[in-house]
């Protein structure tokens, strides 16, 4: 399970339970000034995530960890039962985050809203 929190100036992504194992990460914190936007994107999981480096991939079930595609590094943590939200970053280790949540539309709007307030 991925928990997404927005603090005053950071977007904090926390991996819960076994997701720490799949992604090999517990937490990713990004300054809100480095977040360019968030989008509910159900189609993103139908495309190849790229090369796993490192992470876990059970096709159609779980995509987790660091993936490299077209020279861009993306952090994934999505499983089949979840809705993907794509968070675009700038000037960070990851070009973007693809995170599985219960309600991608609401999550994307919540993140976008925090950028509007800035």
């Amino acid at each position, binding site marked *: 399970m991925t928990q997404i929190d927005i603090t005053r100036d950071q977007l904090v992504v926390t991996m819960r339970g076994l997701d720490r194992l799949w992604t090999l990460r517990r937490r990713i914190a990004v300054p809100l000034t480095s977040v360019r936007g968030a989008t509910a994107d159900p189609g993103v999981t139908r*495309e190849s995530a790229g090369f796993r480096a490192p992470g876990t991939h059970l096709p159609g079930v779980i995509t987790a960890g660091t993936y490299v595609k077209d020279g861009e590094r993306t952090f994934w943590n999505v499983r089949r039962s979840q809705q993907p939200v794509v968070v675009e970053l700038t000037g960070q280790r990851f070009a973007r985050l693809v995170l599985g949540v219960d309600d991608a539309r609401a999550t994307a709007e919540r993140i976008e809203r925090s950028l*509007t307030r800035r």
Partner: protein
Amino acid sequence: MGRPRSFDEESAVARAAELFADHGYEGTSVDDLVRGLGVHRGSLYSAFGSKRALYLRVLREHVTALESDDEDLTLLLRAAVERAPVDPDAAELVGTGLDVLGRRLPATPDDRPAALARLLGEHLIRRATTPSTTTEDT
């Protein structure tokens, strides 16, 4: 960072405007944008940041174009109904668009709201009674 743009951003924005005008914000998925704009998903995100950021850019350019052209008002009307109530940035752009339209009308400031309502109403009726010429995706 990221790879260089391999597509013409301006024509991509113009194509996105058509998609958003035809299908609305929620009705246009990222898949629709990837297909319709002919760009890679990664390029779309690195160019525009998010679907909402692209939508706001489209809406901003539409509002600017209202200054001069006899623009089609569908995008503005759709934004007014669909996005303005839930998105303060969209609401502000819609407000600006309505101001721009109002100022262009040959009416005194007092008569402007009525003239604007009439213009928007006429556009809605025309849209509702004219068969669509755009080809719908199946």
